[in-house]
């Protein structure tokens, strides 16, 4: 045994599972995470996976934190190493005092020698070979066995594992006993060989209350069902695919007509992202609620159509699940790097409404709100989620729905409204002064309300024009609509202690930023905080910036894209902003933010902080 100081912590540590993708480890790791959650302890999981189906390294990081800080944390206290390919790296990345859990059926290579960690070897392969004959089962249960072993090491309540297995396999009952047996094999081995070795504990708390744990993409798909979307055009792309998969799953559950067995939804897998958004535009033009989901490369392809929808004023709801760009970039790593591409997508003068969720519940709500806003404003609304939010499970408040909530279908003239209309109706005529004209849906009225939708310049009556004055008037009216949008989009969340310095963050940078501010407060540097929820910026955002002297903008991209939007749209002096930028594709951490804010504040002139 070694003589170092073991890390001792209860309900506050990080465990990293190093696996091979396609080996069935995901369900075992999820089981572990779910049990932590069911023990009442806040937990977050980050799946760091390759753009590959089988055979390459994948990691699953679980942070357990009873104080509720669930952003990613650097450093691993415990590593479950089951992947020979990454063994060297995993071994050396473990924190001093940490625990290295490995399959001791094979001896550790001689060059893996650390005296500052505890090695915990469990002969997973041997145990499997002794207990199972089917090679497939040997592989699957190897994962369950290590979960059983760590359940003992962390002193976790074993009955919660048993209950979880029972509910997971409620419909495949014959799988319950073998899974529990595998858990028990690991648990018993660890108890026999490693009693009182591990200083990390997971003990029951009551911190979860009624919270839930889900992926942002599932919440987005569910939001589209509640929000009344009936048509989805889409093209597969990581990390957005599971939005449409969730939409389809919930539609099959909630949207099949009982009598006829027919679908109250149409999901069309398109030939590319251009067609995906073309389908959405055709459907909303024709009076249905429609949406699509994509990621950065898809946004690039959809840009021409987004310009059409902006100029011809057609509702679009698009969920952009951002990943690391540019180009193909790192398709399975996260980033907030489509902000500018989305805000100003397409040629000519265009700008689009953005909604920025920070957790799954907000994904759900912003999808419903986005479908409303798209129709109210007759323009594209893009929800800026990302891979971290979309594909990882997050603890959040439960999904809520108010049955009195109505769908806001916006300004649509139905048959009787057209019938009563005496004056000439103009598709692009701003009668209310809010920049939003009235539209009609094809097939509504035999004699009135038909018009020709076009992306070419048009007058207030939708007639083609090359009269520059008429064109300019239409473009200016779109700015009136833009001002109206500022009053309708979700407001920022502000935490103020009347400090002169502030941090601004958005989306999945929220958890780490809030934790960073608490860490800084304990060192005597507290900041006011603003979490931006939408674009265009309303008065609250502008006022917050005006009322602070020094501002740190925390983002997960290289070019400080949100800062650019604030400078550009609000006319703020760029020197007022300090950039805290993380863009290595891993979710930002509180420690990174703290380090860089401290570094930046010590360097009075140099404001740019790069990792």
């Amino acid at each position, binding site marked *: 045994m070694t003589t170092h100081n073991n890390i001792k912590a209860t309900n506050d540590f990080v465990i990293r599972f190093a696996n091979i993708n396609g080996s069935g480890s995901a369900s075992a790791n999820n089981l572990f995470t779910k049990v932590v*959650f069911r023990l009442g302890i806040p937990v977050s999981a980050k799946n760091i996976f390759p753009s590959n189906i089988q055979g390459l390294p994948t990691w699953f990081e679980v942070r357990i934190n009873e104080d509720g800080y669930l952003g990613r944390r650097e450093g691993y206290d415990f590593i479950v190493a089951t992947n020979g390919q990454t063994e060297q790296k995993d071994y050396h990345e473990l924190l001093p005092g940490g625990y290295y859990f490995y399959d001791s059926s094979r001896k550790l290579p001689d060059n893996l020698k650390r005296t500052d960690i505890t090695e915990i070897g469990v002969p997973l392969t041997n145990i499997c070979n002794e207990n199972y004959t089917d090679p497939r089962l040997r592989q699957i249960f190897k994962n369950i066995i290590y979960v059983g072993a760590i359940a003992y090491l962390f002193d976790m309540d074993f009955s919660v594992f048993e209950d979880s297995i029972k509910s997971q396999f409620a419909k495949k009952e014959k799988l319950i006993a073998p899974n529990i047996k595998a858990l028990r094999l690991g648990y018993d081995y660890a108890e026999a060989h490693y009693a009182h070795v591990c200083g990390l504990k997971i003990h029951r708390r009551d911190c979860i209350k*009624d919270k*839930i*744990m*889900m992926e942002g993409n599932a919440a987005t798909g569910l939001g589209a*069902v509640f*929000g*009344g979307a*009936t*048509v989805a*055009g889409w093209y597969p792309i990581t990390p957005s695919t599971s939005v449409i998969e969730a939409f389809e799953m*919930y539609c099959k559950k*909630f*949207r099949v007509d009982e009598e*006829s*067995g*027919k*679908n*109250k939804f*149409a*999901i*069309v897998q*398109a*030939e590319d992202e*251009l*067609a995906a*958004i*073309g*389908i*959405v*535009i*055709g*459907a*909303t033009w*024709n*009076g*249905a609620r*429609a949406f699509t989901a994509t990621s950065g490369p898809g946004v690039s392809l959809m840009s*021409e*159509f987004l310009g*059409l929808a902006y100029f011809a004023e057609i509702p679009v709801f698009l969920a952009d699940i951002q990943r690391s760009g540019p180009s193909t970039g790192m398709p399975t790593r996260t980033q907030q790097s489509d902000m500018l591409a989305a805000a100003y997508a397409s040629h000519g003068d265009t700008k689009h409404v953005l909604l920025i969720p920070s957790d799954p519940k907000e994904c759900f709500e912003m999808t419903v709100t986005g479908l409303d806003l798209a129709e109210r404003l007759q323009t594209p609304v893009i929800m800026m989620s990302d891979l971290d939010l979309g594909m990882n499970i997050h603890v959040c408040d*439960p*999904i*809520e*729905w*108010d*049955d009195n909530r*109505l769908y806001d279908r916006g300004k649509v003239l139905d048959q009787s409204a057209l019938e009563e209309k005496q004056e000439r109706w103009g598709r692009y005529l701003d009668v209310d002064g809010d920049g939003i004209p009235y539209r*009609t*849906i*094809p*097939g509504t009225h*035999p*004699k009135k309300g*038909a*018009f*020709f*939708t*076009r992306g070419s310049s048009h007058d207030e009556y939708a007639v*083609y024009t090359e009269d520059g004055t008429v064109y300019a008037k239409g473009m200016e009216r779109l700015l009136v609509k833009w001002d109206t949008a500022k009053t309708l989009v979700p407001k920022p969340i502000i935490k103020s202690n009347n400090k002169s310095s502030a941090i601004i963050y958005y989306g999945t940078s929220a958890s780490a930023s809030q934790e960073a501010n608490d860490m800084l407060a304990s060192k005597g540097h507290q900041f006011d905080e603003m979490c931006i929820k939408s674009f265009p910026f309303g008065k609250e955002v502008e006022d917050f910036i005006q009322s602070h002297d020094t501002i740190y903008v925390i983002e997960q991209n290289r070019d400080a894209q949100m800062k650019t939007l604030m400078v550009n749209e609000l006319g703020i002096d760029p020197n007022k902003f300090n950039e805290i930028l993380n863009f290595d594709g891993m979710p930002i951490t509180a420690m990174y933010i703290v380090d860089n804010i401290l570094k930046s504040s010590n360097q009075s002139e140099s404001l740019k902080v790069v990792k």
Partner: protein
Amino acid sequence: MSYLKSSFRHPNAKVNDIGFTKKDYEGALSTLCAGCGHDSISAAIVESYFAMNIEPHKVAKISGIGCSSKTPTYFLGKAHGFNSVHGRMPSVATGANMANRDLQYIGVSGDGDTASIGMGQFAHIVRRNLNIIYIVMNNGCYGLTKGQDSATTDIGSASKKGAPNQFSSIDLCQMALQLGAGYVARSFSGDKNQLVPLIKGAIEHQGFAFIDVISPCVTFNNTASSTKGYEYVRDHLEATGTIDFVPHRQELKIKQPDGTSKEVELHDGSKLVLQKNKNDYDLTSKREAMNNIESVREQEKILTGLIYANKDLPDTHQKINTVSKPLNSLNKDELCPGSGILDALNAGFR
């Protein structure tokens, strides 16, 4: 050229069975070149919808970009139209059709819009068997950008610019056949007698109906050296047979087939009656249709008329099993699961 369309119509103008005059099917005045084949196609569309007793506002017209894609302004003025983006009409039409299966859809495109920039979308709207009439106004050149060769320009054909085209041409009827269209026809803008029954048949067809209409570009591609000029096309037509459209309810009035004619039944029981000619073959055989296009081409002729018809293919809505009620008419009560399921839903996330 005229720039105002007379609104005068004879007070006793003929009305169709649902009380509309032909004027109700017309659109704005065309701004295409005088003599453009596309205007004849627009006129044939007006004629067909009038005769088929379709309420004008129950049709949605969708197009891409180009001279051809301008034409939906010139017919069915009481119908909503959508001049979308270049080569992307099929996706917009797909979304529109998904939203409301009760309307009729007519998509208008050109040879550039379909055979080049829109080839991908064209392939996939055919595969889906969307219920739409898809008309390509095929002039073998890019008219709006002044006469460049298109992907349907035949090898060796030369436009006004003079240089013969060196690249293989795409036969859109063969493409449509290969990709699974249920109704494939080709016609000539100068042959209204053939085109109108083909459009009527397309209106009746349930599923994807494709009509490739050769439509000479009088300004850039009507030269003696072009294979899409009026003169060349007139001299090289080879029809599948003289064609007549017989609506279902008139069936009893027509003479029994006398051995020289052949019938093609459509979805509602209407029939297309073809006078047999030497190219007669089984119109429901994809293989024979392909063969016929090729063998007529070998004789340096252009096969026109109805090339293939199969009324039994399921359209997109049937394939994806949507409800019969248009999706755009479903209200919140029909779409939203409501708060009643929240407890169970949230429990599933714990």
